[in-house]
């Protein structure tokens, strides 16, 4: 069958990936690309911290602000264990007890997590503000109180918003799969041995899932140290600064105190790197609980009529953490004076008119769309290619590339922003990118690199290697196999990652904040600028639009059969 075109022995193709030197060349190309993209911005920051001679002295000896910022960061991040425990119990109940409407409840926790933090925080400000918060005003009226009960601009306020809007929902999302994948026969074996349901939970289920819980806690702690929006909106007015908001303040100083921002970032970066390495070690060593069953064997716990009570409780929780802040947000955009229903004309479209009339608004919508969809489209293919190269090829230096790809995982968005900003401003070749939407797309793509690649790697590892080998034996080269066999088999995951990155692009504030210029301003940054200027109602208008975009993406994704909830 020579006419079918089996090539004679000759020089092998570059992409054959089998030739030793071709492996080396490809390995070096990948490594260099990964290093430029992920290590570059970090090195710029570390290097920059030493350019300014006073920077280190200032943050070590003089700046009480820097110290208190680090202290508050740690304090807030310490919510992680509480969030993990709460999230674990909610996830366990949703998966193991047949609660009516649990599919919807779980989806709403996804929505709670996807909702941008600024609109949610604005919603809570409208409810719990010391002076104007509606709940405070009502409570004062009803009980004839002198003082407000709640104060949203406080440590407690920041805790509350974080726990309800991000920390607990993300734990439900993260721990769900671990609980689902547990091998049900392990529990059944406990029952056979004579243990009751509670004893099985205490002695078998919980110990098996402790690694997942701990992993979630470390992860929550790391994410907590990087948080920005809530702390900025609620903390800054009360002089409560955390690491990221302090850096933001330093960069916005006149003149900017970049050196100190970079020195402080370097400290945080190394702390995060250590934490992240501990996390990586720990997850690598404790993956046993999640590698076995299919989840089909999981027994459901019948609790009779109590399931309706539980369902009601969950719907109430959903109402409080999603619908109430969103409702108040919408209300806040349409009231002449927020909370005053007895005015002659309590409702107005004035704020919407101002926002829509703002020359930044329509471009911001377009920028956000370009940012979300652009980062998602580029990201999906870059992540898939990288994941495939790391997982399935034998190019040189894959472990190093793998590490670099993972690195942004422990880089706070604000730090990545500082790094990229410096890189663009001080590298003549890159200056044209300053103020372009491309720079923002790049930043989001880099920020989502670790998550994207890890999801894809996971997905590729589940594709039987023989499916690829079969293609090769049939005569298809590496790239052809990747395109025609691997990518189509990964389709559901490609869509998942596309959605996750698109939503991240729409939501993100801290990564793009320092990079956005008027020409490349996305909605999220526009919203923050309104809020920073005290125009809460206008910020709320933009918040409604942004939140709507995210919810639409999530619902469309679910319609397309995307299994939100199984992504990891």
């Amino acid at each position: 069958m020579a006419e079918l075109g089996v090539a004679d022995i000759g020089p092998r193709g570059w992409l054959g990936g089998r030739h030793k030197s071709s492996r080396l060349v490809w390995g070096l190309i990948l490594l260099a690309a990964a290093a430029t993209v992920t290590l570059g911005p970090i090195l710029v920051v570390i290097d920059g911290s030493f350019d300014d001679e006073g920077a280190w002295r200032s943050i070590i000896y003089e700046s009480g602000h820097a110290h208190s910022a680090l202290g508050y960061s740690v304090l807030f991040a310490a919510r992680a264990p509480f969030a993990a425990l709460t999230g674990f119990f909610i996830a366990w109940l949703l998966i193991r007890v047949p609660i009516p409407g649990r599919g919807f409840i779980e989806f709403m926790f996804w929505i709670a997590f996807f909702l941008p933090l600024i609109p949610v925080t604005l919603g809570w400000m409208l409810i719990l503000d010391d002076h104007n918060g509606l709940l405070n005003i009502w409570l004062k009226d009803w009980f004839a109180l002198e003082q407000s009960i709640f104060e949203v601009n406080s440590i407690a306020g920041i805790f509350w918003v974080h726990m309800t809007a991000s920390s607990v929902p993300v734990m439900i999302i993260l721990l769900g799969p671990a609980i689902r994948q547990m091998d049900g026969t392990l529990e059944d074996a406990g029952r056979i041995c004579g243990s009751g349901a509670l004893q099985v939970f205490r002695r078998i289920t919980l110990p098996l899932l402790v690694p997942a819980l701990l992993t979630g806690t470390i992860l929550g702690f790391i994410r907590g140290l990087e948080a920005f929006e809530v702390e900025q909106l609620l903390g800054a007015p009360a002089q409560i600064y955390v690491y990221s908001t302090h850096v933001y303040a330093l960069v916005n100083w006149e003149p900017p105190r970049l050196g100190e921002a970079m020195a402080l970032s370097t400290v945080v970066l190394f702390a995060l790197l250590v934490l992240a390495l501990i996390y990586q070690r720990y997850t690598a060593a404790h993956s046993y609980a999640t590698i076995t069953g299919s989840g089909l064997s999981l027994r459901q716990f019948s609790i009779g009529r109590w399931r309706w009570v539980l369902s009601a409780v969950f719907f109430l929780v959903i109402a409080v953490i999603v619908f109430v802040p969103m409702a108040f947000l919408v209300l806040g955009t349409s009231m002449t004076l927020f909370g005053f229903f007895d005015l002659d004309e309590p409702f107005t479209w004035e704020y919407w008119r101002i926002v829509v009339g703002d020359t930044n608004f329509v471009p911001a919508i377009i920028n956000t769309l370009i940012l979300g969809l652009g980062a998602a489209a580029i990201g999906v293919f870059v992540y898939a290619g990288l994941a495939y190269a790391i997982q399935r090829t034998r190019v040189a230096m894959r472990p190093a590339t793998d590490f670099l790809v993972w690195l942004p995982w422990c880089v706070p968005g604000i730090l990545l922003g500082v790094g990229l900003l410096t890189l663009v401003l001080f590298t003549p070749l890159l200056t044209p990118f300053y103020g372009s939407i491309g720079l923002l797309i790049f930043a989001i793509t880099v920020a989502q690199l670790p998550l994207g690649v890890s999801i894809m790697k996971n997905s590729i590892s589940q594709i039987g290697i023989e499916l690829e080998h079969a293609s090769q034996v049939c005569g298809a080269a590496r790239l052809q196999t990747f395109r025609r066999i691997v990518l189509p088999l990964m389709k559901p995951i490609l869509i998942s990652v596309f959605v996750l990155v698109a939503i991240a692009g729409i939501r993100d504030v801290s990564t793009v904040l320092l990079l956005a210029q008027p020409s490349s301003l996305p909605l999220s940054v526009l919203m923050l600028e309104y809020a920073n200027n005290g125009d809460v109602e206008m910020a709320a208008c933009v918040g409604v639009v942004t939140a709507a975009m995210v919810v639409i993406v999530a619902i469309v994704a679910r319609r397309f059969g995307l299994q939100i909830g199984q992504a990891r």
Partner: protein
Amino acid sequence: MSDGNSVLLSVRGLLKRYGETVAVDRIDFDLFQGEVLTLLGHSGCGKSTTLRMAAGLEEPDGGEIQLRGKIVAAPERGIFVPAERRNVGLVFQSYAVWPHMTVGENVAYPLQVRRLGRTEIERRVKEICDVVGLGQLVSRSAIALSGGQQQRVALARALVYEPDVLLLDEPFSNLDAKLREEMRFQLHELQVRLGTTILYVTHDQIEALSLSHRVAVMRDGIIEQVGVPLDIYENPSSYFVQDFVGRTIVFDGEVIARNGESATVRLVQAPSTILETTTSEPLSARVKVAVRPEDITVADGHVASVSAVEATILDLAYGGDHYDCMVAAAGAEVALRLAKTLPVEPGATLSLHLDPGKIKVWPS
């Protein structure tokens, strides 16, 4: 083996290491045009690794592989032709049917990769699907297939581009016993019809013996013996081959007299049993006396000849047209199939007559 006897696949000094372990230890063999050669061995003997190196999915660490006279792998000279450029077909143990394609798309894939015209592809896909019995299923999604059907898809996909050599890696091991037997006959028929050259890997001796022109028995990375099935079974070159292929009953023996190649062997645990046989083992050497069950004549009652050994029935199981029987004989426990005509019950004594011409003597 068909006409011409031209060598299609030639393997010389093939070596593969995984870290410290040597998976394939410098083996040689040739595969002739139209021949079915089976690599037979336990799991981990290196047979699958050898097949994968022939396919180009695994790079050898030493030696040379030639396909149709062209060197496709010679690590010492830096030559390696990857799988996609070897024009071999491979059916995987797991079938590796692509789940995102239909049956027809799976089978058409190798032809699309080779950039054949659409009508040509359609014609050949239909042709091969008819040959393997998939005619009705061409537009069926590959996920909705049974194990046997997936097997056929994999076979059709591997045959459709008329590869130089078809490599089969335990293709039937995931099928149930009945289907396996059916597929074995169909594959045999197909091979005869198309004259396909096949390198077959299996641990199943029945498949090996019934399908192959020649069998290569592998053990610990080396080939113990190559030969036609009859030779492998009747004239094993080592105790391993005899024990691995077919059933074997073993007694401890001792050489008590020698004369040239012929020797007298006595069973250690039954000193009255004396066998005249051939062995090169020296006088007084302890040996293994191996005999196939079918070379034992079972009789009722006590022994009447020197080449017989007395046995006591330990356990019996009714097997329809026969009895499956465990007997104690000369210090060994032996499983035998007994005719229903024999009066059998536990504790009864039997006489097992060993055919001296058929027994094999191996070093202990």
